[in-house]
């Protein structure tokens, strides 16, 4: 084998603390090295050209570039060696910048280390084999999980781009949190006026199949070829027949059902259509409240329904869908306001959450848009808002900022003043986080034009006294305890990962952070991709965010899917496991170990069981290689021999040194 070594200066980034020419000189003595030189900027156009020329001039079989981290330029150089006529896997990088020149000050030590790293790469390269990517067909359909504003946007953009879309929503209507909001910051325009048309578009779009009241049961397959099973939960109403007339709801005698859409502010009926603009507008029976289910008798809805849609015997059903990509848009849930005993949420009726307040403000909400205290229906005059409830609080394991509550609180003070002109709002805050376009101007308006009183400090306790709630807090700017006799207390509850987010992540094999939010591939440069090919993120499931950001990410995820599907075939990464038929004894250990189900047991011609890797499914983790008692299954490009060669290269050097001295 003829190997070429190129040692990069990276200007002074490497050359400043490594004797680059010295390393290149030393490399000339390494096994099978036919050519070695140093380059000023390897990744620049002249740098790459020099590599291509050297390969051709010296008839090289493999290339080592000693430069920055392979996580940065490995693809760049692989393309370069390919241009030079080599297989792109006949290439190795030695990381002498991030792992060497940037972390050590001693030039001699760095130079020794750099040349060790070059030797290590050379030794590995000697075992490299050309690998060929396989092409495979893809299914150009996309599954969107979650029908909030982010999911809606992603679904519409994909559908407009010509893709078939399957949209999955676990509740009986799409719309997510935004459907519950009254107005939206920073423009204070009506939430349903801007969301409603989009929801209708979803229902009318010929490319979108909507499964509401449905959940993802299981996922098999890989990018381009996922097979998903969708569970359609029993609604006890035949949606093909139901017209959404609402007669059943009117007549249902069970009137104390929990109204999730209205955040429990008022009860609803056991058979329910969450709100008039629901998409799909279909009824669902809640069996925990329905008398037919509890007591075995009632049947009123079945009698009144003009289309005979009611079906008490209905069971969950399953449908299978084949898609090539998945976008998760499962949003967030709200922090449980009962966790702060000192605020009395859940104990004192007039201590409510911000989302409950949105429902009170909303003209189509249970109070018709009149702000009324839950306890006695009285119109509150003094409203206290407490920010950061369940955010930025290590004691409840929520150290992060939810990002949007400062803004919606400002919005709610403005709306409070609009609804009740002689009211006064008080906001307890720690910091005001309003970094968006027109955002800070908005919070200033709440204070300057609408007279909201902002108090810098936290509230330590809320308790009822006579007809009011005593709110005791601190004004840290004054250095004083402060007290307000409030009529209503609104808790700006923070966002947390959507319930069930981690289970869904495990099905999709994507990772999530310590709080259950989904992990993007790179926090800055790949914010809508996951580390699992073909799975993308949109909206608050990746981390709390407001509507503009959610919509932006929904569109971005759609663009990623459209780019993915712009080709008819995808190439698989050939750095996958490979079974040596001769060595495999068919014990099946690898089959059990593979987290991706990429190995199956087949029979060879003699009828002996042998492991077989499905190349397109294998993710290249190497678990199987370590598991196999016969060393029969080897991860290509990271074989036992290659890693041991690296170990040897590093230790040999040390051994020699230790005997020298």
């Amino acid at each position, binding site marked *: 084998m003829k190997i070429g070594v190129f040692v990069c200066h990276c200007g002074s980034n490497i050359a400043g603390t490594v004797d680059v020419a010295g390393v290149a000189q030393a490399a000339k003595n390494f096994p099978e090295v036919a050519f070695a030189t140093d380059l000023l900027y390897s990744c620049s156009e002249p740098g790459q050209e020099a590599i291509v020329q050297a390969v051709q001039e010296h008839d090289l079989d493999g290339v080592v570039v000693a430069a920055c981290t392979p996580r940065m330029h490995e693809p760049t150089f692989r393309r370069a060696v390919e241009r030079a006529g080599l297989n792109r896997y006949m290439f190795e990088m030695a990381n002498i910048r991030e792992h060497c020149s940037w972390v050590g000050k001693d030039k001699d030590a760095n130079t020794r280390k750099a040349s060790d790293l070059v030797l290590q790469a050379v030794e590995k390269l000697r075992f490299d084999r050309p690998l060929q990517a396989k092409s495979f067909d893809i299914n150009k359909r996309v599954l969107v999980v979650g029908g909030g504003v982010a999911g809606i946007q992603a679904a519409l953009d994909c559908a407009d781009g010509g893709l078939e879309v399957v949209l999955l929503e676990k509740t009986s209507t799409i719309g997510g949190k935004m459907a519950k909001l009254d107005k939206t910051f920073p423009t204070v325009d009506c939430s349903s006026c801007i969301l409603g048309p989009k929801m209708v578009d979803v229902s009318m779009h010929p490319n979108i199949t909507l499964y509401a009241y449905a959940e993802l049961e299981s996922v098999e397959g890989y990018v381009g070829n996922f097979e998903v099973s969708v569970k359609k939960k029993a609604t006890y109403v035949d949606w093909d027949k139901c017209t959404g007339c609402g007669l059943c709801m009117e007549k249902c005698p069970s009137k104390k059902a929990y109204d999730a859409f209205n955040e429990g502010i008022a009860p609803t009926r056991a058979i329910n259509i969450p709100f008039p603009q629901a998409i799909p507008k279909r009824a669902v029976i809640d069996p925990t409240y329905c008398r037919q289910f509890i007591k075995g008798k009632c049947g009123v809805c079945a009698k009144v329904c003009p289309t005979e849609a009611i079906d008490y015997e209905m069971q969950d059903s399953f449908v299978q869908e084949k898609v090539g990509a998945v976008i998760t848009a499962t949003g967030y849930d709200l922090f449980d306001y009962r966790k702060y*005993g000192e605020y009395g949420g859940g*104990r004192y009726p007039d201590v409510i959450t911000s989302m409950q307040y949105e429902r009170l403000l909303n003209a189509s909400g249970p109070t018709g848009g009149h702000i009324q205290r839950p306890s006695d229906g009285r119109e509150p005059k003094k409203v206290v808002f407490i920010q950061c409830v369940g955010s930025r609080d290590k004691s409840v394991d929520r150290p992060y900022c939810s990002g949007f509550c400062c803004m919606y609180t400002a919005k709610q003070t403005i709306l409070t003043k609009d609804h009740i002109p002689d009211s006064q709002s008080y906001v307890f805050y720690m910091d005001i986080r309003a970094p968006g376009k027109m955002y800070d101007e908005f919070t200033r308006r709440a204070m300057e034009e609408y007279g909201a009183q902002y108090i810098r400090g936290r509230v330590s306790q809320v308790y009822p006294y006579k007809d009011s709630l005593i709110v005791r807090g601190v004004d840290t700017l004054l250095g004083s305890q402060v007290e307000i006799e409030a009529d209503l207390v609104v808790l700006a509850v923070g966002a947390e990962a959507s319930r069930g987010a981690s289970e869904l992540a495990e099905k999709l094999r994507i990772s999530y952070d310590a709080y259950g939010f989904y992990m993007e591939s790179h926090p800055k440069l790949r914010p809508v991709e996951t580390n699992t090919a073909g799975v993308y993120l949109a909206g608050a499931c990746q981390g709390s965010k407001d509507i503009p950001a959610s919509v932006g990410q929904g569109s971005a995820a759609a663009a990623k899917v459209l780019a993915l599907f712009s080709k008819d075939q995808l190439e698989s990464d050939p750095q996958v496991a490979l079974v040596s038929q001769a060595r495999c004894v068919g014990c099946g250990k690898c089959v059990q170990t593979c987290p991706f189900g990429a190995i199956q047991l087949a029979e060879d011609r003699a009828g002996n069981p042998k492991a077989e890797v499905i190349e397109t499914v294998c993710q290249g983790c190497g678990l199987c290689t370590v598991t196999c008692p016969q060393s029969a299954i080897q991860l290509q490009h990271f074989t036992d021999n290659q890693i041991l060669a690296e170990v040897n290269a590093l230790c040999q050097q040390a051994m020699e040194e230790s005997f020298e001295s």
Partner: protein
Amino acid sequence: MSPELSYAYYPGCSGLSTSKDYEISTRAVCRALGIKLQEIPDWSCCGSTPAHTVDHVFSAALSARNLSLAEQMGSDTVITPCPSCLTNLKVAAHRMEQEPAFQQEVNRHLQEPCVNTVQVKSVLQALIQDLGPEAIAKQVEKPLSGLKIAPYYGCIMNRPPEVMDFDDPENPVAMDEILRGLGAEVLPYPLKVECCGASYGVARKDVVMQLSGKLLDLADSLGADAIATACPLCQMNLDLRQDQINAALKRSFRLPVFYYTQLMGLAFGLEEKDLLLNKLNVPAGPALAKMQQAAEAAAEQDAQTKEQ
């Protein structure tokens, strides 16, 4: 009947004097419920607040002496009625468990080292967790129907939760449950864990006037007939100092402040010598009379509805 409950018992110094009524009624109630209290022989003072104000090893050593005595009795659980003692004993045990070096240091000052094996609980915790509210309710002979009670726990019985490890630190309910079982009407008293002024009655009386005054005011605004408490210091501040508070705040509260054990004894039908209600500064008579009237009125109502 469940197997007999038996505990090492740490009465605390105030039980011998200012809170004798708490002490006597606690013992009487436990007797009635078949709970055996074995007083720790020759127990000494836990040092209360003044000790931990001076030094933590010192405070822990005073407590650990008693824990060690309980260990020598072969007991696995110590119970005490007084929250202040409870805090000192529990903080000492907790810290010795968390920091072996601290335990060593503490033991250096003791005659018999403390191995730290006994669990420390309040009598209240033992009653609710080990015996259970049903067993208590079963013992009731004279329900306290019609008596509106504000339950007040004091600031340190449940805080900080990492150490005290019992009930909710913001809204404890153990005493509520017991009182409800006695037939009383338990008011939703929101300042259950707010501080009463603690031991500042002597050195900074003004503080107690403000803090205890606020507690009385809230109970009064809720229409309480009485306050129930589990803490000698709270009881003293709210009861003994009630006249001082009235004078300082220009109010006229007349709220009897019972130990919850006294109320249990009342409902169990125990005798005055076991309750020592006569030791209350604000007399219990009017509240109890009101309860009596309410009970009679209810009985009459009952009889009438039956006739109809």
